[in-house]
């Protein structure tokens, strides 16, 4: 009686088994390699960005003490509280006072290189606290852009000895520029700030979210829960999928042709920008929303219908709360894309030079990515670091927005 080996005990089988294990190991190693590569690239990006950008949050400043008791500037708190105080201080010769104080400190040569707008900083300080007019106060005033370039080692060779001398005397230094977060665009890199673009981005995103989210969610709910399945809904489905893939600049052209034609006075306004980006974001929300709604088990709908809930109650009490985490995920992706979008906003005029932060949804504004694009286009070396700093602000804003959305998603997440 010959004993036949069981098929799982043969040498061939064991060889095949070994092959199966080694292919599994290969697959694992490939996956880990891919993740490692992405982490390294991300780390490289973050590190270089931070190193470059830190300089952008600093500004080269001259330390100038001003003894106001020796000057003829006179003002009281009441007049300073009124509008036009800066003009009155200017009429009283504040710019000359500042220049004279600088000459005393850093010499004629150094005073020449004081930023042309430096006296405004002094004026702001006086308006904020009029009592300083009775004593001597030391100010850190922005140096001119040429001196700033010389201080960091490039720019005009003629200014470098001066920068070196002033730095050695302790009059010239790089200080953290808290004003970068509160000022707006300017022609002088020493004077620029990000607040205008940040506020523009916030206002634009508010418009985008408040249009795209409700419309997208309602469209997804209607298509999944109510619409009959026929040729028309098929056409709509294909159209929405295609819309999500349309290049963003086309949406910009649409905004230019339609929205600016409807509201011709609102060129560069966050309202128009937000509406244009909403068009772009909506299909993403609709697609993610439909998938999330599809994933809600039908048994939950049955259970609600069987106790006598009306279809609307089923949707708003059960389907929507259960689909919300998925919808929010789609919204995060859509909004993140909208926040980083430049091209369509260029089409509707948001690339204009806007030196004041927008005061509303209809006043001219720019947004962070466009601001980055504009600064990166500047010839001036001083803008290089400012651009990196703006990118950091954009990334932080993005992180903050995503963090909020993830927090909301986790709060609404439920298991069944």
């Amino acid at each position, binding site marked *: 009686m010959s004993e036949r080996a069981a098929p799982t005990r043969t040498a061939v089988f064991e060889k095949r088994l070994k092959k199966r294990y080694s292919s599994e190991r290969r697959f694992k190693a490939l996956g880990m390699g891919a993740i490692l590569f992405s982490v390294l690239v991300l780390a490289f990006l973050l590190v270089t960005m931070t190193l470059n950008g830190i300089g952008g949050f600093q500004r080269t400043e001259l330390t100038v003490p001003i003894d106001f008791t020796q000057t003829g500037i006179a003002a009281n708190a009441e007049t300073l509280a009124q509008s036009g105080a800066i003009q009155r201080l200017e009429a009283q010769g504040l710019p000359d006072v500042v220049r004279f104080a600088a000459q005393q400190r850093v010499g004629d040569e150094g005073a020449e290189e004081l930023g042309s707008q430096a006296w405004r900083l002094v004026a702001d300080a006086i308006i904020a606290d009029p009592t300083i007019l009775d004593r001597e106060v030391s100010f850190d005033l922005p140096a001119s852009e040429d001196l700033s370039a010389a201080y960091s080692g490039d720019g005009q060779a003629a200014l470098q000895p001066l920068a070196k001398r002033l730095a050695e005397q302790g009059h010239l230094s790089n200080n953290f520029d808290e004003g970068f977060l509160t000022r707006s665009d300017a022609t002088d890199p020493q004077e620029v700030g990000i607040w205008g673009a940040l506020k523009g981005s916030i206002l634009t995103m508010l418009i985008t979210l408040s249009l795209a989210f409700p419309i997208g969610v309602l469209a997804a709910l209607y298509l999944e829960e109510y619409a009959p399945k026929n040729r028309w809904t098929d056409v709509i489905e294909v159209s929405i999928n295609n819309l999500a893939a349309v290049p963003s600049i086309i949406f910009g052209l649409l905004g230019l042709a339609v929205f600016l034609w409807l509201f011709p006075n609102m060129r560069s306004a966050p309202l128009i920008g937000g509406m244009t980006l909403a068009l772009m974001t909506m299909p993403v929300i609709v697609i993610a929303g439909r998938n999330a709604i599809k994933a809600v088990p039908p048994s939950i*709908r049955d259970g609600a*219908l069987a*106790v*006598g809930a*009306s279809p609307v109650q089923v949707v708003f009490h*059960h389907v929507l709360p259960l689909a919300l985490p998925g919808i929010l995920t789609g919204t995060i992706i859509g909004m993140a894309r909208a926040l980083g979008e430049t091209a369509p906003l260029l089409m509707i005029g948001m690339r204009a030079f806007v030196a004041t932060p927008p005061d509303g949804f209809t006043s001219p504004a720019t947004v962070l990515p466009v601001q980055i694009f504009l600064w990166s286009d500047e010839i001036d070396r001083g803008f290089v670091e400012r651009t990196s700093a703006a990118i950091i602000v954009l990334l932080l804003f993005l992180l903050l927005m995503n963090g909020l959305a993830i927090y909301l998603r986790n709060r609404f997440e439920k298991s*069944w």
Partner: protein
Amino acid sequence: MNVHSNLDTTDQKMTARGVSVFYGDKKAIDDVSIDIPTEYVTAFIGPSGCGKSTFLRTMNRMNDTIPSARVEGEITLDGEDIYRSGMDVVQLRARVGMVFQKPNPFPKSIYDNVAYGPKIHGFAESKSELDEVVERSLRRAGLWQEVKDRLDDSGTALSGGQQQRLCIARAIAVDPEVILMDEPCSALDPIATAKIEELIAELKGRYAIVIVTHSMQQAARVSERTAFFHLGKMVEYGRTSDIFTNPQETRTQDYITGRYG
């Protein structure tokens, strides 16, 4: 009119006359006529795919959710045609509750699961009244002792049998007149099944109960009336004792003796 000459006349809660159900062109139910008594438990038995669940779902119009489904014939509740135009489906489903094959509690707290029906129908005026409804329903479903200290826990955290009793509590919280049960024990172990069967016996009389079941033993244990379905037709309907001991049709006999099914 009584279509079942072999049965003594009792109060009829629901009646069906010549009911056919189509899914698109496919006929799933063919010309079924049946009376559902008020006092008793009625069981629908039959092999898989014979249409017993489909027929059950026509009785509270749950088939409306399937776009291709079409119902012909007449089904009445207390003499009122439930498929007439102008019938309020929401009200119908509040009067004819349903328990499903797979326990499907909402992913909400135990309390909210039971309170959901009374809340949307506005049955409870105040929080204390709602508390009472929830407690009464859970007591009737035999679940109160097990969950009274954790009403805020998620309904989905309960065991399968407890979930099914929660679903029964959810159904009886809106005080229906009829409860339809679609294979309520098929996903449960024998102990949980026994509990549900006990519960059905307790609920009998208060509600007209229709139960679809795969298990002939279960039909024999819990019901007074049994209908045997085969290939979309109702083959035989009668007292449960008659169906199991003295079936009139050979197909019924073949099924209950285990020849097929």
